[in-house]
């Protein structure tokens, strides 16, 4: 795939940050910027789900910021996934993006199926399996 994933974020149902991973190897994107982008994406997600009657979990391109593109996905349980990618000349296909989000969703489902996971605790995700899955998503996308 012809684009780099810069950042992957998981945001809880009450808009609490669950997981933010900076995948870039570029010093131009500090962690703080990832937090900032994830934060601003929440507004766009809310706007998207209130305006579109379309019931797909994948929300498409949320916005483009300088040289970055931000994509969103919301589960039925109101958990939001955000992927930030570098903008390239070639258009990013929705199909590819959906596949990435599906991988994140699978990892998340596996996480909450753990009986020791407390759904109401709103803790930040700290699971080696989830880390590995996210790393795979980030690595699989860069050509």
């Amino acid at each position: 795939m012809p684009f780099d994933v810069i950042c992957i974020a998981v945001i809880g149902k009450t808009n609490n940050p669950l997981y933010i991973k900076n995948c870039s190897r570029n010093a131009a994107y500090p962690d703080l910027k990832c937090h900032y982008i994830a934060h601003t994406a929440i507004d766009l997600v809310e706007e998207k789900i209130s305006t579109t009657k379309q019931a797909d979990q994948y929300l498409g391109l949320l916005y483009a910021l300088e040289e970055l593109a931000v994509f969103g996905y919301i589960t039925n349980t109101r958990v939001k996934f955000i992927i930030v990618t570098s903008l390239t000349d070639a258009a990013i296909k929705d199909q590819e993006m959906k596949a990435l989000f599906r991988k994140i969703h699978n990892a998340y489902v596996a996480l909450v199926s753990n009986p020791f996971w407390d759904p109401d605790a709103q803790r930040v995700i700290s699971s080696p399996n989830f880390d590995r899955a996210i790393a795979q998503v980030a690595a699989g996308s860069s050509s």
Partner: protein
Amino acid sequence: MATAVLGHDDRRLVAEASLDFLVVEMVDLMHRSHAGETGETDREAAYFKLENLGYQLGMAMVERITKDRPRFLDNLDVVKFICKDFWIALFKKQIDNLKTNHRGVYVLTDNNFRWFSRMSGDGTSADISRQAFAHLAFPCGLIRGALGNLGVATVVSGEVTTIPHCTFQIKISKP
């Protein structure tokens, strides 16, 4: 439980009988562990514990079942999902009847509740209903957990008239 509905890739089979025994034994264990306390409190404590167990399982299950579903548009949609997909995943059958007053109260009727279908009891029908009621805590919690995770805060209570017939009342709590 129908593993195919839960979205597993590697389908594994579970003996239905052993699962039934496990559920029965779980209820019994909770009531035995609170047997020392007096009167109504012990029954309430056990009920509360079972309900909480169901709540956690419902939350986790719904995450898995709704993975490939379009988003829900309103509360009725969510309750319909409970009656159909969720119940099929749990009991391989749908809820038989759904009634609502359109003001946030839903009554789900199951004419042949699976965990009651192989039960029989001693005494009058009132006694049997009382004994069977203890087994409703867990499914009530399941419903509450599933709805809670889908963003609908509710109070769920169950009622047995004659086994295997039972009803669940869902009351949506106003935010």
